[in-house]
């Protein structure tokens, strides 16, 4: 009797929990589905709010191939800037994390550098853009790829240093000592011991840094020119044209999500680990 009541109650509770989760998941997914639908609609069909419509590729053609759109070039810019800055961040962060973790720096040095990394990571990037803009202009790098890459390296280096410090700390020091006894020099230890063992950490860091760089808007907006504009800058400019082409903007938005979707499918585990270790530890 009591057991029966409690299982009925259990079932109700489990049902409520699942209902809440399904609702939340639907709320997350619906905007993406809606924008994807808008991307395949004609402007008229979108205005009419049709649910049943004949899908068209015209918006994608317009965004990618029409002479008035730079979106294909913007896309290549983003690929270039995100890839190069991610590689640079990985190299610099791994070296720094190894140095801070294993090279017997005084404790205050390690603490100070990591503390500044945390503080800088949380500061609004817009506060520094003005100074970057002025400095890059002085050396003739304003609106150049180099300037944008430098800015993205700076924005993402702190979080990458944190993540790599955590991963390298977890590598048993005995392995490194064994290699040293065999006569390995620092570069050999780094390349043959640390890098292979830190591979999961490198993957997580690379995926997150690439996505952060791909998504970055406030800095790119102010440091890029028409020729070097990235995908987020392009999406924003779609929304600000005098006559907004809503469906073309939807198509550009959908295309901009592709890299993150691919990385989500390939590296979900890495992303979760990276996001939680970066913030919690």
């Amino acid at each position: 009797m009591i057991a029966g009541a409690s299982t009925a109650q259990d079932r109700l509770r489990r049902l409520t929990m699942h209902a809440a989760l399904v609702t939340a998941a639907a709320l997350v997914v619906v905007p993406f589905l809606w924008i994807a639908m808008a991307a395949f609609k004609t402007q008229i069909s979108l205005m009419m709010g049709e649910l049943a419509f004949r899908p068209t590729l015209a918006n994608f053609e317009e965004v990618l191939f029409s002479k008035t759109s730079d979106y294909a070039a913007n896309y290549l810019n983003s690929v270039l800037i995100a890839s190069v800055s991610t590689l640079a961040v990985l190299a610099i962060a791994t070296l720094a994390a190894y140095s801070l973790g294993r090279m017997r720096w005084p404790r205050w040095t390690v603490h100070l550098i990591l503390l500044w990394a945390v503080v800088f990571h949380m500061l609004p990037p817009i506060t520094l853009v003005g100074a970057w803009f002025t400095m890059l202009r002085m050396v003739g790098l304003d609106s150049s790829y180099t300037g944008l890459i430098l800015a993205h390296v700076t924005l993402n280096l702190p979080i990458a240093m944190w993540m790599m410090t955590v991963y390298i700390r977890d590598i048993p020091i005995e392995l490194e000592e064994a290699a040293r006894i065999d006569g390995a020099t620092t570069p050999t230890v780094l390349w043959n011991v640390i890098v292979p063992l830190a591979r999961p950490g490198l993957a997580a860091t690379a995926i997150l840094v690439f996505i952060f760089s791909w998504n970055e808007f406030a800095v790119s907006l102010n440091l890029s020119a028409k020729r070097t504009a990235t995908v987020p800058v392009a999406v924003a400019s779609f929304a600000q044209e005098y006559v907004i082409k809503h469906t073309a903007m939807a198509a550009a938005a959908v295309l901009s999500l592709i890299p993150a979707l691919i990385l989500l499918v390939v590296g979900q585990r890495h992303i979760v680990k990276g996001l939680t270790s970066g913030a919690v530890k």
Partner: protein
Amino acid sequence: MSGSARTDRLWRWLTLAPALAVLILLTLVPIAELVAMSVHEIVWRSGESQWRFIGLANYVALAGDQLFGAAIVNTTLFAAIGVSVQMVLGFFLAVFTSRAARGQIIYRTVFLLPILMPGIVIGAIWKLMYNVDFGIINQVSGLVGIPPRDWLGEQSLALASVIAVNIWHWTPFCFLLLLAGLESLPQEAYEAARVDGASPWQELIYVTLPMMLPTIVVTLVFRLIVAFKVFDEVYLLTGGGPGTATEVISFSIYRRFFTEDRAGYGSALAIVTLFAMALAIVLAVTALQRRRVTA
């Protein structure tokens, strides 16, 4: 031996040098540059900038800047309301997911989606959804008899609409961190509670909540600070308007420095923001560390 000690020291410096170079040249020097700019009036004439020293005049002007004042109020409201809702929703979703027998991986993947998307694209998506004429929000609210509204254009609705987007964007992040925390809790405490006949609610309040407190505090502080950065969504959704209804701090700095070309004054705004935030972050980090040491 001394030779190897010397190469050790050399490698110690070489491995840290690139990071130090970036941190000094691209974070510390720019802050010094901002300080220098903030005590000047800077005018652009035919591609050349002309600096005129004006002392602390920019900082004095800042006190009477109503736009910046509105931005501080709005950003505080935005962070406080948005993050509170995100934390509560994220916590319950995390608890439900951790207790769900099936579908954990699906929920986790779905909830990752918004975190990984460009803020500007999320702005674009919601700008279309909020559209007065054809947006899905008005279509759905029409079904339940609410007349269509201009969600982003009405003074009284705009900030709430922007906060709603932020809640949609970042609840999943709170969810993810809190779920990671839940999964690292020792199972023995739950078994003990169950043996004592605790109901799921009692279990939540007397077992989960106290043990989760450190994770909750870290997530809350982290989200609160990051919420003060908000720029991308506001830029696209409302551009700070209507009036100053959705003006936020990052947007004011951008507006003063780049749109109005007042580099000196914009730098003063940036410096004030930078130091206030840095102070808040350092206080939060040290407080959290002390907690962890004593706990």
